[in-house]
């Protein structure tokens, strides 16, 4: 398919603007643009067709099953799109006076209350734009908290298990901390013995995903909490997997001091091809003074306002109050469940365990336990015996019209296949996917070339990622655009994390 720039013709346009008959002020020459940006030039009909085609070459949850582990690709209810587009939300300026934005303030305040209840922690800031930013904000809070106690210089280390998502260590560095890795034990929990040797007065805190990226609830969580709290350190809960435990076990009750939510996972903000997301955080009382400004507070029964008067605040991590439209959707989503949110998690866990039960004989299961909302299999056996990798399994699943699971993550599992069905799938769908996986396992032995050559029914076959990185053609170059089909293939495949 052509690039939109390749469909352009000088003189075409889709826009019509109100005519201007007023004089246009002069712009000083050195500030004036003379060479116009080469934006696309198409009339509206072609514009619509182009993006319609773009969409049909994209697989979404609306297209089919999307069991991308760690990403919680659940159905996005359409009523949420209806309410987020109400003019009172959509066209509200963020600097509108408080009297003119009571509805928005109330919605955010209500969402805060809900998240506090789900987390089991009293204070919430909605500001972070995504999970990663929630993490970084959490680390900033730790820094501010310890600075306030005069411990900023000594507490330099953040403990992170080897199963952690890449954002955790990346956030640690960006937050000005150092990573202390801790191992996973044979049951898939944090290795508590290893942990004890790593936590001391130099430790600022822990970052943990629970259930972990292995889809396992850490059975030692109470011990872990004790270790950190006794060392005077803080505990950060990466909420990426909260979909497993809403109303079943609360991070605050587990002992965590700071929690982030991924509203685009647990609370169904559509993923939008990569975003937007929302990464609110909930914290314990003693951390509340450090939260970003403004705080959204209630004055009396019916009035809400923005409170900037927080002397100890870390400041701001994003503009205004955060991604408001995301809040509207997530709030609506939660209101559809009410206290029944627990059922959401129950079904997510039921679906995952059902698939696991049906798959665990055909694929290796590194930790033989019941799983939570997702599970990680290994294609190690297939690789050893038939040269079939997790990548091959993933590509072959495409032929069945399924989006592949996350692969090569978590890193502790070789040839990992990380499968998260979510609660919104029908049993028939789970069965079809499982049947496909079982057939693939058989085909790996009997006709491995079928897997190696997959996918067979997509607009493109396997793509040359090495060439892409080497050539780094990251924009259209018009007359100078290279023809990469004329350049040799790299002949290599990258077996790296895809997903999560």
């Amino acid at each position, binding site marked *: 398919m052509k690039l939109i720039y390749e469909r352009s013709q000088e003189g075409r346009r889709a826009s019509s603007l109100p005519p201007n008959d007023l004089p246009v002020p002069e712009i000083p020459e050195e500030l004036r643009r003379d060479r116009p940006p080469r934006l696309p030039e198409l009339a509206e009909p072609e514009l619509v067709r182009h993006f319609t085609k773009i969409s049909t070459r994209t697989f979404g949850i609306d297209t089919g099953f999307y069991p991308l582990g760690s990403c919680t690709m659940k159905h996005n209810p359409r009523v949420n799109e209806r309410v987020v587009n109400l003019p*009172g939300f959509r066209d509200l300026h963020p600097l509108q006076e408080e009297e003119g934005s009571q509805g928005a303030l109330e919605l955010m305040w209500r969402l805060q209350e809900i998240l506090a209840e789900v987390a089991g922690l009293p204070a919430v800031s909605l500001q972070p734009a995504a999970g990663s930013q929630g993490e970084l904000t959490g680390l900033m809070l730790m820094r501010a908290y310890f600075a306030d106690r005069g411990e900023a210089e000594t507490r330099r280390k953040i403990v992170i298990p080897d199963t952690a998502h890449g954002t955790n260590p990346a956030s640690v560095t960006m937050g000005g901390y150092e990573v202390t890795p801790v191992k996973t034990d044979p049951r898939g929990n944090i290795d508590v013995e290893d942990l004890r040797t790593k936590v001391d007065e130099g430790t600022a805190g822990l970052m943990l995903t629970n259930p972990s990226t292995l889809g396992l609830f850490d059975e030692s969580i109470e011990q872990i909490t004790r270790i950190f709290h006794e060392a005077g350190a803080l505990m950060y809960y990466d909420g990426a997997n909260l979909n497993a435990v809403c*109303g079943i076990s609360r991070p605050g009750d587990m002992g965590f001091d700071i929690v982030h939510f991924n509203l685009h996972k647990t609370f169904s903000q559509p993923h939008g091809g990569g975003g937007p997301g929302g990464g609110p955080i909930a914290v314990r009382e003693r951390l509340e003074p450090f939260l970003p400004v403004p705080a959204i507070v209630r004055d009396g029964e019916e009035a809400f306002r923005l409170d900037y008067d927080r002397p100890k605040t870390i400041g701001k991590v994003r503009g205004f109050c955060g991604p408001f439209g995301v809040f509207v959707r997530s709030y609506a989503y939660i209101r559809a469940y009410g206290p029944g949110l627990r059922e959401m998690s129950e079904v997510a866990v039921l679906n995952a365990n059902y698939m696991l039960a049906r798959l665990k004989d055909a694929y290796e299961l590194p930790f033989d336990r019941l799983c939570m909302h997702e599970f990680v299999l290994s294609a190690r056996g297939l690789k050893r015996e038939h040269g079939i990798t997790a990548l091959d399994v993933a590509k072959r699943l495409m032929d069945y019209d399924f989006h592949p699971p996350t692969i090569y993550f978590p890193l502790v599992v070789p040839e990992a296949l990380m499968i998260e069905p979510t609660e919104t799938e029908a049993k028939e769908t789970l069965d079809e996917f499982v049947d496909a996986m079982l057939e693939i396992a058989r085909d790996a032995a009997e006709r491995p070339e079928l897997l190696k050559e997959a996918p067979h029914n997509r607009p493109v*076959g396997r793509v040359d990622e090495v060439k892409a990185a080497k050539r780094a053609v990251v924009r259209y170059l018009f007359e100078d655009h290279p023809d990469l089909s004329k350049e040799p293939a790299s002949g290599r495949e990258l077996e790296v994390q895809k997903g999560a």
Partner: protein
Amino acid sequence: MSFLSLTERDREEMLATIGVDSIEELFRDIPEGVRFDRELDLEPALSEQEIVAHLEELAAKNVDTGRELSFLGAGIYDHYVPAVVDTVLSRGELLTAYTPYQPEMSQGVLQAIFEYQTAVCELTGMDVSNASGYDGTTVAADACYVAKHVTGRSRVVVAETLNPQVRQVVKTYAPGFGLEVVEVPHRGGVTDPDELAAAARDAACVIFQQPNFFGCLEPAPDLAAAANDAGALPVAHVDPVSLGVLEAPGAYGCALAIGEGQAAGNYQSYGGPHYGFMAARSDYVRRMPGRIVGETTDVEGRRAYVLTLQTREQHIRREKATSNITTNQTLLALAGLVHLSWLGPQGLKEQGETCMALAAYAKERLDLPLAFPDQTTFKEFAIRVGRPAEDAIRAAREQGVHPGYALKRDYAGMEDALLVCVTEKRTRSDIDRLAEMLAA
């Protein structure tokens, strides 16, 4: 529950396959001590119709820009969003996909990001753009992180005329980055290149805004030159709407161009979600944060797109990554691409000119002292209303007009100053009405 498909029979069959008797049992690994033993204290579930009614009620408590004649800007703008943007964003495949990890499943969105990157590069005159940052504030922090690593220096300079929220976010991030932030005050509404030059010595980067927060045109080429001379990376924070009429940062020597994309294709939405954009010279491509899509070929030599240069990223490089960003703002950036494609080069220019012309008309028509009378402005300008700004705002809002942003919220000595924004959605008679309001 209308989002769940399992019937009672399904549940029974599944539990049997798993080999447990109840759903409860699936949670047996959770230690007793941390189980939640009551019901969540949330309001009862609502039906779809009740959700709509409840949220309509909340929405009605807001005064949006359709219910009030608004001259509010200051970073978020009431520009016209064309209907095609809605059309494209409502395509379920695009709405409900995630990051295109598996290129064969996602050529559509990959191509769209590639097209977006191209549009951002064309707008800014840069070589490389990422797939989006969170918003116009966080991309500034991202720029500091790039500059720190590129230069090895630990000070960043920001103009006081840079959007106050952007400055605040940079300051919030700075301690973690090990950076110190220095502000250069404005002189008569713009930044003095010499002062900036002095501050830029030993700095990792210099961030200024064009047009600046007051709507004034900075001597941007001089500011960039001052930074370059000092070995600091010049970073321009730009309004996409201005780039049909104002010079591209790449053309006057900037290392990075960043900005808030909202004005191009996103609704105001009380401040988000929107998209931050970030573009750079090719020198810095391997230090860019976030997703980047590149062109390549498939096994049969056909053109294909894929996430690339991933060795920058957290999932590969972990603590050594150029950023921790994962989820970004692709859908909003896609809206930006559609919007810019709708405008085209000619439309973008016309839009910029119309805003400028209307703003000039407003300046004249309001007949109030300008806060910075000597400056050329784009779509915003600061006036002195001769009484506390909040009084003027309150009085006007009672008549259904929001006259602008009170600059005292961020700047000392500007008690009576309003920042008035005029987009192409305002008409001459709207401006006449504002004039009446502020005269009264």
